[in-house]
């Protein structure tokens, strides 16, 4: 016994040195399978990280300073109300669009999850996504235009006397964003809603909770984290609106969104450096909003939405 204890210190310190590099890496979760990450990593580096860094570098070398390093682009962006105002124009569009889409999706998803013909309905709802923004905008011009069916029907029914203006303004872009953004929101929220064990709601109703109380105390807290993520993804999508703002909006006025400003700088004024700066600002605003939402939702429950074992 005592002999064994005396011998132990002699061998123990040597042991860590003998552990091979591959074993030490494996302890930190790095082994041969980690190499499978390489293609994806290269892809991200080449198609995302490099262009983003290059854009950032470009934006810091303003054209009017002959390519010398400086913050000229950012200073001129934030000193021209016509330009920096596009941030608020875009926010005014993107935030309500996202909120409306989520507000529409939640009740519909709650209904749809119990339907047997769920697949048919989801297929119908998915169609707008497959059409693309340009085709949707074309359709909207025909349908909601001054001589479109929508106005004609309302006028025939004597609901209105003169056509309502629904395109080439804020409303047009708003509607178009709803049409193209709703299916995305809906599908995401449907998957979150379907993940909630129906027996939880049954249990709540057995305990005396009516539909409103069940929504407030059971569904909403369990959906919270999912709604926050849906908000972030849908918001980022809506914030980068471009085609519909041009096609069904008024791109020089109320729907002059930030993407238009970037396009204008890069491809109409040929100031690629300024265009990059606006794109970087656009990304910055998106990151700030996402960070705020994520921070605010950090306290929400994010475990499994099932009622127990079995």
């Amino acid at each position, binding site marked *: 016994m005592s002999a064994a204890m005396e011998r132990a210190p002699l061998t123990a310190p040597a042991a860590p040195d003998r552990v091979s590099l591959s074993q030490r890496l494996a302890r930190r979760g790095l082994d041969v399978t980690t190499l499978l990450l390489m293609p994806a990593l290269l892809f991200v580096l080449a198609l995302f990280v490099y262009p983003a860094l290059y854009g950032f570098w470009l934006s810091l070398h303003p054209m009017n300073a002959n390519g010398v390093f400086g913050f000229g682009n950012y200073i001129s962006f934030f000193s021209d109300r016509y330009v920096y105002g596009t941030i608020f124009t875009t926010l005014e569009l993107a935030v309500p669009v996202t909120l409306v889409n989520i507000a529409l999706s939640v009740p519909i998803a709650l209904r749809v999850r119990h339907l047997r013909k769920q697949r048919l309905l989801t297929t119908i709802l998915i169609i707008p996504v497959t059409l693309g923004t340009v085709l949707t905008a074309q359709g909207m011009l025909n349908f909601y235009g001054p001589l479109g069916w929508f106005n004609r029907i309302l006028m025939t029914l004597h609901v209105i006397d003169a056509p309502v203006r629904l395109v080439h303004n804020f409303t047009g872009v708003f509607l178009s964003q709803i049409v193209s953004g709703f299916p995305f929101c809906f599908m995401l929220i449907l998957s979150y809603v379907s993940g909630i*064990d129906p*027996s*939880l709601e*049954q*249990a*709540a*109703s*057995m*305990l*005396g*909770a*009516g539909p409103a*109380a069940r929504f407030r*105390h*059971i569904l909403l*807290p*369990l959906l919270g984290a999912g709604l926050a993520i849906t908000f972030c993804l849908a918001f980022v999508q809506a914030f980068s609106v471009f085609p519909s703002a041009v096609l069904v909006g008024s791109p020089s006025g109320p729907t002059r969104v930030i993407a238009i400003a970037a396009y204008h700088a890069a491809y109409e004024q040929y100031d690629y450096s300024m265009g990059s700066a606006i794109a970087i600002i656009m990304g910055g605003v998106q990151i700030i909003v996402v960070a705020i939402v994520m921070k605010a939702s950090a306290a929400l*429950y994010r*475990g*499994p*939405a*099932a*009622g*127990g*074992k*079995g």
Partner: protein
Amino acid sequence: MTISAKNFRELRLERMRRDFGGLNALKDISLTIKRGEFIALLGPSGCGKSTALNCLAGLLPLTGGSIWVDDNRIDHLKPEDRGFGMVFQNYALFPHMSLRKNIGFGLRMQKQPQAVIDAKVEEALALVRLTKQADKLPGQISGGQQQRVAIARAIVVEPPLVLMDEPLSNLDAKLRLEMRAEIRRIHNMIGCSTIYVTHDQDEALSLADRIVVLRDGEVRQVGTPQELYARPAHADVAEFMGYRNLLKAEAETEENGRLSMRVGTARIAGLAVEPGNGRDVIAALRPEDLTPSTDGPIAASVISAEYRGRDFYGLARTQDGMELWFRSDIPVQPGEALRLGAPAERVLVYPARAA
């Protein structure tokens, strides 16, 4: 302040019926349950017992019949307006709420003052012995503890009736025995009525005051555990209650309910339980009542035998190819020839079903 069930005299099901499309899941179930009674709904899977429970809870609408609490008809009420407690098979604890909040949820929905909620939740936690875990989330406790939370949550609102849907089926054997005793203890303490769905006849026998045996959506028999154990009313109930040997027999003579019949080449005696007027009958007997003896009427040879501690249980085959489960106090070996017999009062005779 003690948790005790609200006052009522009885719960009545009158020709309760539930169809799914063309399928009759429940066929005219009628039953009266007294206050404080513990009822087990027993039946094989697919017999309609969970459907019956969901109809009582209000989670499934009836397609016929009515449900009454004393003189109030309740089958048109939503689950939240019935005020029954329910323990779900998967417990259905709210995963985002602490045990305390889970248990207090029903009281909160009743808009009770916070002081009342706190006091009753504390009492319920003590009742199911989970006071120390009160602030954990359901995901942080074991299955048996989750089970106890589910029970506490259901009874803390003092419901007249507690519905339990196979609440022990997700627990291991030892825990199941412990929880069985716990459920009965809590039931006795708060004095509610309990309807307990199970497919396990041991659970039903040990817990219930009365057992309702369901099969294919119909009530086959209602009785005390003793009645069901000793005198199943029908051959299928007998089979379900542990009468593993169902022998085709031919009735010969009957005298005061005591029937003499021929099973293959052997002649045995039994009690006629269900009246029938055919010569073809079924003799039901438990393995524990069929034992080897020198004057046993049935000759058979042992196929297999298993040691059960106190005695042996075995399977034997007669010359006619009939297989019989039996019990023996002495060791038996496969291949051994035996003579098996059972006391007449333990052989129950039912008319054979028209095939």
